[in-house]
């Protein structure tokens, strides 16, 4: 572990990672506490309205069913928000120049931004889990699946946020990415329902959404049951993470929209 940190320190990735973590931690009320509160409100309202009316898996009440989905949704949205908002802010205010002038490689940038996104995603996810779990403990049937999908989900969205942050030239662009891509993909991924309750067309469409596999695989860790095999989910999510990471690395290497 100390060897890894040393290597990261030498590459410059470690200080950038620490800086990125400090950046959101200094405003943790807004970047961690606020999303936890939002998730709790979802749980209270949807749970109250639908508890007892919907049973998705045998023996799993709706409130309990909802918790893993909410945890994952919050994790994904905040991992994305971290890298994307940091980059776009630095670009607009111009202080990205301090980083551009350093000898950091594109790999160091990638590791640092995605790593910090993962930390924020996990912090928010854990917060949501602890608070909502207090209302209805969801159990942990196969916890390793929960851990694997949490790590992959945070990395995937961190890398996606990196791409969005590089591409966006103003906050409007970022809002487009967030509202028209990230939000629909998370809401239509089975956070609030099992996709098996959907009509065939929407069921088919859900299977094209990598977020569906993230949530389904994550939920497996809590209930030991899922809509599709967790191995299939792992394959899809792993491939998506790899693909998105390669694109992000390529954009960083070529200095897309940051080195003219």
């Amino acid at each position, binding site marked *: 572990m100390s060897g890894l940190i040393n290597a990261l*320190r030498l590459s410059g990735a470690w200080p950038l990672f620490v800086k990125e973590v400090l950046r959101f931690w200094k405003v943790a009320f807004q970047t961690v506490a606020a999303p936890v509160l939002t998730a709790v409100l979802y749980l209270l309202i949807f749970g109250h309205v639908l508890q007892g009316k919907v049973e998705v898996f045998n023996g799993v009440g709706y409130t309990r069913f909802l918790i893993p989905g909410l945890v994952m949704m919050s994790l994904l949205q905040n991992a994305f928000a971290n890298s994307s908002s940091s980059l776009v802010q630095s670009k607009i205010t111009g*202080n990205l120049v*301090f980083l551009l*002038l350093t000898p950091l490689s594109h790999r160091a940038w990638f590791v640092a931004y995605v790593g910090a996104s993962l930390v924020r995603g996990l912090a928010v996810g854990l917060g949501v889990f602890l608070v909502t779990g207090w209302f209805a403990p969801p159990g942990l049937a196969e916890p390793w699946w929960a851990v694997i999908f949490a790590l992959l989900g945070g990395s995937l969205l961190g890398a996606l946020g990196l791409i969005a942050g590089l591409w966006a030239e103003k906050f409007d662009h970022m809002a487009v990415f967030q509202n028209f891509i990230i939000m629909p993909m998370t809401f239509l991924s089975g956070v609030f329902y099992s996709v098996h309750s959907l009509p065939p067309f929407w069921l088919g469409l859900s299977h094209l959404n990598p977020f569906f596999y993230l949530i389904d695989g994550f939920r497996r860790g809590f209930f030991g049951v899922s809509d599709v095999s967790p191995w299939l989910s792992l394959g899809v999510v792993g491939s998506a993470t790899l693909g998105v990471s390669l694109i992000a690395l390529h954009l960083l290497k070529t200095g897309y929209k940051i080195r*003219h």
Partner: protein
Amino acid sequence: MSAVSFQQVTKSYVSAGRTVAALQGVSFDIQEGEFFGLLGPNGAGKTTLISILAGLSRATTGKVTVRGHDVVTDYAFARRQLGVVPQELVFDPFFSVREALMIQSAYFGLNKNGAWVDELLHHLGLSDKADANMRQLSGGMKRRVLVAQALVHKPPVIVLDEPTAGVDVELRQTLWQFIARLNKDGHTVLLTTHYLEEAEALCHRIGMLKQGKLVALDRTSALLAGTAHTMLRFKTDDPLPAALAEQARITGRIVQLPAHDAAEIEAILATLRQSQCRVEDLEIGRADLEDVFLSIMQGVHA
């Protein structure tokens, strides 16, 4: 080996459907330990050239090296050698002055840089602002932090892109004393500035850019000697006769006219007398860098 070498650097980009040639084959070298001034009007390509050197921008063709290392293929080495003070007053609002400097140090692999950071803070008059958030600083203070940030890794080559634009006199003095000392200690300095008296006072050698081309490159003293003429300076409230107005440099009430010898001075005074133009504070002096600059930019190198 040169500290910095520009070799046939060109840069063109498309703006509003039109190709703009920002740099058209610029070549020159800056030697180790030199204090080099890069002058030119707005849009001449000074910042573009510095951006290419710093890796913020990429040359369309040509090559730039820092102490023999290519800024593109060997960027990590090149950037360790460079300390760049950007022109824009930028800062990271999340951090205090000391935090910003420690973070910048760590990017260069310096984790125990506290002593040098303290020294920088002291020399730039920032010691009492060390723990203030960047947002609370005035423009001049932010500029000092930019200078400190560029120097955290003790770079052998310091690049200052118009560091004194909009800066008060006190900071200018502090800054130049500090930079001159670093230069004496062996650091190479590349400076772009609008203040020609600064360039004249500080730079050993000067390059002038005009519309993306290098139009002058010489020792400062040689450039000044190149304009053998003297200048006639005076103040007036009256309109100048047309014949003189053409070649005059006018700043408010102050008028400056090139005059090569006594006969020319007599002729100017005669013209002024005939047109009943009343003058005050008449003096004759040597041409300064501003005169050289203007004559080169007008394409009539005297």
